[in-house]
């Protein structure tokens, strides 16, 4: 939906607009919330959409609806995370959780061995990500897991595109260092 059409919808019925956003953005926000809040993702999603609903009258269409939602979601979820004083950021989805597993349609296509390998890699990358500064982790997550462009990330975070560009470069370099050091530790351990 174009911004104009969405603005029309907001003007006509704010609840309809929020419901539309739930259907369009629900999965993405859910994934972000799972990574930020783990088991309490539902509370996070609820709070994000409540915040979106409250903020709809202030949406002017300067940014795309998608990035506008991301911006609110990131701010809200990080606030929630701080409030809950959780240490772990961007938790991986718990694969042992049967509910999550059942919802993972693409998971059916992998063999158990592929899944194990992916799980191991995921744990390694996740561990390295968690050692990064929050600003670096955020840009990498939005880029790699949510497939946002630099411009969209900039809008979502409220920073200039140039900042995203430099943060991405720095984040990738840091992540490379962390991954190399964990691999070296593994090799030394053997």
């Amino acid at each position: 939906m174009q911004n104009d059409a969405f603005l029309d919808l907001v003007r006509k019925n704010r609840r309809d607009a929020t419901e539309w956003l739930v259907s369009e953005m629900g999965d993405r926000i859910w994934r972000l919330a799972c990574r930020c809040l783990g088991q309490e993702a539902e509370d996070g999603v609820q709070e994000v959409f409540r915040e979106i609903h409250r903020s709809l009258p202030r949406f002017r269409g300067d940014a795309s609806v998608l990035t506008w939602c991301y911006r609110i979601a990131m701010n809200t979820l990080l606030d929630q995370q701080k409030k809950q004083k959780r240490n772990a950021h961007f938790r991986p989805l718990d694969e042992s959780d049967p509910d999550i597993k059942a919802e993972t349609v693409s998971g059916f296509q992998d063999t158990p061995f592929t899944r194990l390998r992916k799980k191991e890699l995921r744990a390694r990358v996740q561990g390295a990500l968690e050692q990064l500064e929050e600003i670096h982790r955020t840009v990498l997550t939005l880029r790699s897991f949510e497939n946002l462009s630099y411009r969209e990330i900039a809008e979502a975070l409220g920073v200039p595109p140039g900042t995203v560009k430099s943060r991405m470069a720095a984040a990738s370099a840091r992540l490379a260092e962390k991954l190399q050091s964990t691999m070296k530790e593994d090799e030394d351990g053997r």
Partner: protein
Amino acid sequence: MGVELQAYLDGELSPEEAGAVEARLATDDSLRRKLQVLKAVKEALEEAAPEDSVLPAEVEARLVQQITGAAAFDEAPVRPRSISLWIKASLAAAAVLLFLVIFFNREKNPQGEREHEAKMQQGPQEEPIRKDEAENAFLRLCVIKEKKAAVLLHDVIITLEVEARKEPILLYLVPNKPGVSLEDLAEEMVTKDILVPPKAGFLPCTLSARIFTPGGETLEARVDYPPSKTLAPLSLSWPKGSLKAPRFSWTLPLSCIHVFRKAPRTYWDVAPKMGGGWIADQVKAYEHFQPIVTRANEKSRPDHWERFAPVETGTYRMEIVLRTLPARKEYAWPVFEEPLQVGIPFEVSGHVGAWSKEVKGLRFRLAMPESRCRKGEVFPILLQIRNTGSLMKRYNITRLAGNPSMVPYQFDFILDEKGRPADFIGSRPAEKGFSFTLHGTDLFVPHLPGVLRTIVVPSRWWFRDGKPLDEISGPARLGCRFQFQPTSWPAEDRTYWMGKVDVPPIDYRVEE
């Protein structure tokens, strides 16, 4: 150059900028190595991306209910974990409001009521149903109890023959008389064959299933019901110590039966958590069953309500085994007694009401068994819903508190020509000291366009004047008013369906 290199890798540079980077790469070895490192990191990140999970439908439904529900969504502060109370309060308010609206409409609109009564008295007029219509022979149900040597001494086998349709079958098991009803069977088990100790609060049994395909193959199946980790596969429970003369029935939607293959032992050893002894990801490869992933339109996400439906048409035979759990020391129950071979097939055909008029892409009708009903015998009543529209539908279960039931709360039954509503619709009343717990998600199974959905409800569930329908003898007329409201709908569906439809009544007679 590092900044430009990362942006180049991400495809975020203009053609001119990218050209400049490529020119540098052509002459600079260290830059090429750096690019390789960044590329490896990017690939690792992409491969390590969590598998796509989707917003669970129940969470989405709760969100939508909150948004549509009340002003509270606008202003009320969030209290963690208060969502269920909040929804309950909204639903309670909505239910009271709905009741008041219906009540006052009836009181203030006697003309409308008279018109409705006149319509009811006219009986079914639209579209006489031909017996040879394929949809009238949609189901053959057969209940067989048999003894098979010592192996099955503890088991009751219920055999169903189901004509396979390319829709997950939603079926309430309602065996018919004459013979032994499932209810009697259950009573036999509990009161005579299984000595449940006074302190027990549940029925000690498990369910499993095998499926025999039209081609003669035998498939193992797992009764995976309900699809929740919070409820037991089948929980029949009662207040401890109250089980003196228990009678119970149980319901089982066939859509909960998933076909799995036993996992090879190596998988057990390597990844015991990956489905235990069952490999879920091989289901997809199974040639007889394919997942139905509904998609409302090209833009919407695939619905995560995935069910497995047969790909072949023909008669599948399904053997469901209700198996008692091994006796514990403090329990003792004798084996089942003499075999009893009772085949009770019935076809639901012929005795069907007229289709209602189409409302928001839905048409309804009632159907009953052709045989006459006898007082005291449970008989099935079928509500059929045809999705004549172009959009997927789902039905809400609003009975959240206490005992989740598969009965949609929006049913508003009218049991006679005077338009009196039913006193009670639901599972067995609490005063019997017996309740069963079922998960209410199966009516959420998407109802696809063009598909006929049949819900079979035992007459024992429908009460009037404090009595179940099968306890009221004489001629009777059964009508039904179906009120529906949206639970969720695809983004492009702006029709916002909500409505009310009177299902043409059918006449029946309960013999003394």
